[in-house]
């Protein structure tokens, strides 16, 4: 037994790839410089699967995205690696307007099983295209599922769910978590899309977070534990979003802080706040607060760590809703 086996988040994702590619010959990967492995999640995959299933492409994001869509229409199950998720904007029409809408608009006869992956997140001092987290944009567009793990365990399980899903899934992770270690079972398991996870129980206030911010939230919960009992809900998946679990948590705590590293305006946090307004208004004892990236471009330099939702900003919001 290997209940203590620890992998990095990248290794966990890689393990999911390997298991699913063994299981299903239709699964292949394409992206820029994935054979060499720009990031460890694709490292040495060619050794087992060959260059025809782990395909390096030219710098050509629309071609890559279209290749994935067309191959999916022809019965394959592509994993499309954008390297940095922000590069997906180069294929804006394919990724946000076409991929999720093709199935419905064509009479729901032919789903497109595509997984798009990319790293993203603030705090690496690289700014803009290399940091942008496109999930706020993705959830706005019908037909694309979107998720982001906070732990290696969730990463492997969500990735397996994504690869087995017949719909397009945008699977993101935070650059600062790539080397984050944690327990990952060797056996086959799936973390379903659309199921949130209570990462810490509490009774005074709920923090909804995802990815790296789950860890910031946990830090705040730990710090405040003698004063305020904080429940940390990991959204895990933005679309489908597990509203029920969140409402159950709020039923208990009556207070909500949403932590979202993406741009605040018109993002995931706004959507959740609006949904809670509509479905949980009577549960609340204080207005929902958002802690997001401010509405400024993601700066590089030393600044970007100050614009992300820090533990200080989260703590402040928690104290405010508990006042």
């Amino acid at each position, binding site marked *: 037994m290997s209940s203590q086996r620890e992998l990095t988040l990248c290794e966990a994702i890689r393990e999911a790839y390997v298991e699913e590619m063994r299981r299903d010959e239709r699964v*292949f990967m394409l992206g820029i410089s994935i054979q060499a492995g720009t990031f460890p999640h694709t490292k040495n995959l060619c050794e087992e699967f060959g260059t*025809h299933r782990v395909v390096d*492409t*030219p710098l*050509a994001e*629309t*071609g*890559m*995205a*279209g*290749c*994935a*869509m*067309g*191959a*999916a*229409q*022809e*019965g*394959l199950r592509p994993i499309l690696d954008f390297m940095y998720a922000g590069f997906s904007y180069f*294929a804006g*029409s*394919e990724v946000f*307007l*076409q991929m*999720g809408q*093709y*199935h*419905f*608009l*064509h*009479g*729901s*006869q*032919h*789903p497109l099983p595509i997984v798009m992956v990319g790293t993203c997140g603030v705090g690496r001092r690289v700014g803009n295209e290399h940091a942008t987290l496109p999930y706020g944009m993705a959830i706005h567009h*019908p*037909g694309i*599922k979107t998720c982001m793990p906070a732990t290696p365990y969730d990463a492997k399980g969500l990735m397996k769910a994504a690869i087995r899903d*017949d*719909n397009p899934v945008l699977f993101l992770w935070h650059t600062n978590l790539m080397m984050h270690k944690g327990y990952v079972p060797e056996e086959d398991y799936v973390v379903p899309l659309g199921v949130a996870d209570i990462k810490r129980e509490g009774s005074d206030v709920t923090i909804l977070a995802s990815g790296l911010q789950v860890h910031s939230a946990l830090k705040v919960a730990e710090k405040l534990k003698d004063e305020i009992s904080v429940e940390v809900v990991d959204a895990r998946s933005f679309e489908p979003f597990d509203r029920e679990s969140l409402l159950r948590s709020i039923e208990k705590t009556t207070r909500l802080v949403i932590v979202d590293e993406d741009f605040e305006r018109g993002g995931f946090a706004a959507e959740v706040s609006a949904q809670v307004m509509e479905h949980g208004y009577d549960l609340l004892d204080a207005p929902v607060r958002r802690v997001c990236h401010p509405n400024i471009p993601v700066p590089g330099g030393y600044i970007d760590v100050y614009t992300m939702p820090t533990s200080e900003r989260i703590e402040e919001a928690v104290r405010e809703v508990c006042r």
Partner: protein
Amino acid sequence: MSLTNDQKIVLFRNLARAMALDRMMMRVIRAGKMVGFYHEGGIALAPGIAAGAFLQKEDPMWPHYRAHGLAHMLSKGIDIKYYVAEHMGREAGCCKGRSSFHMSFPEDHVFGFSGNIGANFPLSVGYGFAAKYKQSGQVVMNCSGDGSYGEGRCHEALLMSANWKLPAVFWCEANGMAQHSNVKDLFPGPNVSSLAAGFGIPSMVVDGQDLFACAEAALQALAHVRQGNGPIFVECKTYRVQEHSVGGVNYEGPNQRDPELMAKWKETLNPLALAAARLLAEKVLTQEDIDQIKADAEREADEVEAFCEASPKALPSVAEMQAAVYTA
């Protein structure tokens, strides 16, 4: 490559059918019975017939949107009445009445459409990639207009196809126009197929009014591709003798297009008339045969229209539609 007489007759019949359907679509949209757009084919349908003529059911095809790909699809053997029904927003529509001008015939490997011109290019890379991956022997027929070659997506597709030697035909139906612009004002050279050489892709330029020349070019291109030589580019020169889309202006830049020139083209460059003359001269068909084919085509068009009108308007509930966004 030369065509058999039987092949010529099929091509001719299909062109007659496509042109009759094109006229029917015009009647229908003018009568206010169509939802969405229609972009008349006019005398530009020979290339589409040729493009579809020699494909297997399994060969993926992206039809050029002019005349909404009716020529391409019927030539490939698809029963297009479900697509026409789609234009009329009917339950019988191939997209369940949800799309207005998208087609969907996944079993015939025609997977759909997009209102964004140029969307075909990256998708065709995927079709070709899959053919190679599966070693299925499929070939890809990627049809679009000369204007579409402005989009950088064509570059990425030409590049990937050439680099991976994908089995794909870049089939360009060059009518010299793109919406309300003359292509000579948008592209710095006489043929957009001049792009192919930069990728080492062979190309040919064909008279798009000559149905049989187009068909021979298609045969030649498909042979090249099926032999594993990678992609090929075929540019069929044709004409637009009417406005871009029904109800719009017929301008090029700030100037109206010359109506006399268009009338002359219409008269002298009708591909069906040109093909009929050839078939008569070669004694492949008699005038009676030809008249019969044309009459059959008209009747078929009427039947398609009647079929569509008989189908109820598609009006699913929002809840039904919400359940149709994802597959389980």
